[in-house]
């Protein structure tokens, strides 16, 4: 078997694949954060909890209502998105205009509540969700074995990322969003319903997180606490990439997944820490982040 730096090539490819998949999740999540941050100027600390809700929702829809993966792929994000709209309407809206730190703390409280309540009902040991039959097995690429589901995750996650980027940068709706970031009051003056736009934006950002949750359900262990760790990693990704650009959030997400995968191959003990170390280095060399514009 061919080796590279003392590591079998197959292992390297395998870890690289896992890295790209993790990266796809980081990209989806940091994209959602960036969308919400763009218009609402808040860091959604409940983003990890929304990702978790998406995954839990998928499992519960199947267990109790027999709803399959394909329906859940649409239904779960919509349901969780509605939860998001409710949170925005009843909680976040009340502290709009206050220091942004308060919205961070508010969403942190919401995350604690969601995570705590679900832990009481389902424990932390993890629910089982079986892979849809369509995705059983995989294909041999010659240099490595690629399970179908993993290929699907990468493709669909990147498609959604690209779609979001396209919508925000190239469509009319996106131009409203970007205008709202610049000057919400003026937008209101032009007759655009800004509060509605804000609710929908929050709901959409949350939907992206929930969508990532559905994708995660068949391959990661689904627990009420699954969102909290990945959220901290995604925060680091966001700091590395800067939230100035949507494209930047996507690229940084995938890149960091790959970096993590490579570290797992060559020096496993550092794999859970490497993204944070990259963050430190980036902060020291380029404090605004790789794609950031703001100070």
């Amino acid at each position, binding site marked *: 078997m061919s080796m590279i730096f003392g590591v079998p090539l197959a292992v390297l490819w395998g870890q690289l694949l896992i890295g790209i998949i993790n990266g796809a999740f980081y990209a989806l999540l940091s994209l959602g954060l960036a969308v919400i941050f763009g218009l609402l100027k808040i860091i959604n600390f409940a983003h990890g909890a929304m990702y978790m809700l998406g995954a839990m929702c998928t499992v519960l829809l199947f267990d109790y209502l027999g709803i399959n993966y394909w329906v859940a792929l649409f239904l779960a994000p919509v349901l969780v998105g509605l939860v998001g709209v409710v949170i925005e309407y009843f909680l976040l809206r009340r502290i709009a205009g206050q220091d942004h*730190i308060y919205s961070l703390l508010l969403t942190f*409280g919401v995350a*604690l509540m969601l995570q705590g309540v679900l832990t009481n009902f389902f424990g932390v040991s993890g629910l089982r969700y079986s892979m849809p039959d369509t995705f059983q097995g995989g294909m041999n690429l010659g240099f490595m074995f690629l399970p179908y589901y993993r290929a699907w995750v990468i493709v669909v996650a990147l498609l959604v990322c690209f779609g979001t980027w396209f919508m925000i940068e190239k469509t009319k709706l996106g131009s409203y969003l970007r205008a709202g970031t610049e000057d919400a009051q003026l937008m209101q003056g032009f007759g655009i319903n800004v509060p509605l736009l804000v609710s929908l934006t929050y709901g959409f950002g949350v939907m992206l997180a929930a969508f990532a949750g559905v994708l995660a359900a068949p391959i990661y262990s689904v627990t009420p606490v699954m969102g909290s760790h990945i959220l901290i990693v995604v*925060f680091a990704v*966001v*700091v590395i990439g800067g939230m100035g650009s949507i494209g930047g959030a996507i690229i940084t997400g995938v890149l960091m997944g790959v970096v993590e995968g490579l570290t797992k191959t060559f020096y496993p003990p550092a794999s859970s820490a490497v993204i944070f170390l990259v963050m430190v280095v980036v*902060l020291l060399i380029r404090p605004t982040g790789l794609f950031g514009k703001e100070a």
Partner: protein
Amino acid sequence: MTQPVNQAEIHQAILEQQKADDRKRLMANGVLLLLLLVAPFLMYPVFLMKILCFALFAVAFNLLFGFTGLLSFGHAAFLAAGGYTTGYLLSNMPGLTTEVGILAGTLVATLLGLAFALISIRRQGIYFAMVTLALAQLVFFFFVQSEFTGGEDGMHGIPRGELFGLISLDNNLNMYYFVLTVFIACYFLVQRVVGSPFGQVLKAIKQNEPRAVSLGYKVDRYKVLAFVISAALAGLAGSMKSVVFQLASLNDAHWHMSGEVILMTLVGGMGTLLGPVVGATFVVNVEYQLSQGPLRDWVDPILGGVFVLTVLAFRSGIVGEIQKFMKKNLG
């Protein structure tokens, strides 16, 4: 039309108001001190010490959050760094007296705080919070994987030892008065810091950083120093906690703990001196009462609810709201 007024008279009035305020504060502090001195005869001393350690932790955090306007989401790292260092030294170096162990723990937390500060002040606002959270997670992983911390099991049976090699701290009363002394000293230290010209600059940074910069203050240096003092006191709290409970565990390093200290400060009243103390007392008591009753599994969601409620309804916290009420009704 404003009435012509004598500058000297106004000055005199302000001075007298200040004197009256000082007297009131002195009396309040005196009553509190008396209560704290007799408390161990009325309540379980270990529980009181737990409150004091968390109160110190919250006071330290508040110096940064309440007075400088920097939200650190990584203060658990300092609590744990202090606790683990002290625990390790006291467990493995039999000749070491307790106060040296605690000082060493504080020192390690201080240095860690310096490193955190130098990295995190490069970003502002919510980014600052995210960076500190990520750095604390890095420290958490270090503690998980290190041999000396005992990993998931934590450190147990840390000897309390003897203070200055003379006073046995195995006696809960001795331990209590030691913790109380340290707490009071730190409380007054923070009071001095906040009242000093240095503290005034911190407040200026909180209110309007660009203006502080334009006035010629080297804002970054002030921020770093505030961060380091805060980290040192948080480390001291952690060191004492590990001696009191004779254990140090990963719980102290978890992001959950960073959230808890924010909650304590917020509930008590950020930016007030007494607020974090009240908040810590409140949170520790609520946790204890809940853990005894039928709601013992609901501690987390309830604390989350308190968080949401505080942010929505009373951002000034218990002490802040009382101050507002007094100002409104009692002049």
